[in-house]
């Protein structure tokens, strides 16, 4: 029996609660049902773990995909004046197709297709991977644009210095341009992480038990939406505020190291 009625609950509640106005009693009852009864706060903690794992995994994958795409697109743009190698032309077409598809379809739809058509995970681990891959592929399309502007913000002279020493195009990119570009785009990547964190709330459609899904689970047990969903919003909000603060500190540190 997982439902204890309000009347039963209030009878056993501490006396300070019994002294409260009735609407506050109701809130306390809902809060108790959401977090304390049967240790339900565990649902939130477990959900948050999944949320963080998927966010960080997708961010890492998105950064890798994004940088690769950015390098291909910049290579294509840079070789306009000479003849463009066939490989670069083919890769560039792939990138364009990828960007068009990913940006042209809702994330929810991408999750449904990955979860129920392409990957069809059966295990918990498989579902996490599916969530990371889908969000990572999606994020990659946005990171690509960020990374492209990051690469272009590194001065031409850096490429010329690298090439004039005999490094080839990709060595120059890897050793000289990308490290500087990444430093330039770290703040933007921080914002991408925050976006991703919020987007992970969609993974519940492939039955991944992230914090949003867990809040839904609690609602389905208590039949009361108010406290679980408001709490869910507050949880996201607190994480985003903390992350934003941390990023601000980090960004200031970075800028300081520029003027040593």
């Amino acid at each position, binding site marked *: 029996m997982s439902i204890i009625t309000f009347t039963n609950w209030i009878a056993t509640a501490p006396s300070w609660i019994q002294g409260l106005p009735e609407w506050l009693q109701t809130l306390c009852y809902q809060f108790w049902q959401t977090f304390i009864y049967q240790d339900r706060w565990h649902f939130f903690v477990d959900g948050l773990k999944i949320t963080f794992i998927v966010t960080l995994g997708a961010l890492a994958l998105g950064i890798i995909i994004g940088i690769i795409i950015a390098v291909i697109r910049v290579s294509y743009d840079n070789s306009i004046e000479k003849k463009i190698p066939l490989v670069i032309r083919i890769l560039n077409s792939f990138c364009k197709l990828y960007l068009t598809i990913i940006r042209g379809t809702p994330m929810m739809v991408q999750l449904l297709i990955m979860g129920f058509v392409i990957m069809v995970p059966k295990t918990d681990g498989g579902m996490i991977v599916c969530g990371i891959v889908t969000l990572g592929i999606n994020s990659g399309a946005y990171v690509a644009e960020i990374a492209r502007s990051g690469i272009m913000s590194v001065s031409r*002279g*850096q490429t010329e210095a690298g090439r004039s020493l*005999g*490094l080839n195009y990709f060595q120059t990119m890897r050793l000289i341009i990308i490290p500087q570009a990444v430093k330039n785009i770290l703040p933007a990547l921080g914002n991408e992480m925050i976006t991703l964190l919020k987007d992970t709330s969609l993974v519940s459609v492939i039955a991944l038990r992230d914090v949003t899904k867990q809040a839904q689970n609690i609602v389905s047990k208590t039949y009361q939406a108010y406290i679980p969903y408001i709490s869910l919003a507050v949880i996201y909000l607190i994480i985003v505020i903390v992350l934003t603060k941390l990023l601000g500190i980090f960004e200031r540190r970075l800028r300081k190291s520029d003027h040593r």
Partner: protein
Amino acid sequence: MITVKDLHKTFHTPDGDLQVLKGVSDHIEKGEKVVIVGPSGSGKSTFLRCMNLLETPTSGEVWFEDKLVNDKKSDIDKIRMQMGMVFQHFNLFPHKTIMQNITLAPTKLKLMSKEEASEKALQLLKRVGLVEKADAYPAQLSGGQKQRIAIVRALAMNPKVMLFDEPTSALDPEMVGEVLQVMSELAESGMTMAVVTHEMGFAREIADRVLFMHDGLILEQAPPSEFFGNPQNPRLQDFLAKVL
């Protein structure tokens, strides 16, 4: 060592085509020091940058020793390893220490082990008097120091020729001397050099031959005594009257 034959270069810009080199030919001997002067926009940088293919010639030939540089089949990276280049704006790698700036290319291109490269770097740093900056970052150096490091970075590859594109133009006047000093010593050591500069005193001092470029052509070339003492072309006379 370097032979340039009938070099043409046209830039295609949104405002139309810009013909910057209009048939430049020259031959630089091993050990020769060639200084290139001329008014702004005359194509000096473009000419120099065609030698190591930072600019692709529109037509003509660039030979380095027995290799055609602007040939599709030539291994341009191999050729560039033997041609050092120094830029007006230094172009040091800001995310690397001075030591890393110098050793990056020799080690990544597997020309030297880490130890060999650091030893070579220290030796070169000693030569330019900047050993104590080995662990500093470029942002911590003055302009003159940066340019001396840029020269060292190029020399660490043991190049056969060094190209300089206005190496002192971005420097405060009081720092020009220290860079020219390093370049003079390099010239004395027998390095083959091609230098674009506005420093006429330096040209007079180290050049075997001075080229005057104007509007995409070499209009005059002579040893410095003749070049400065008895210029023939009226455009060169004008130019020298303005800069001397």
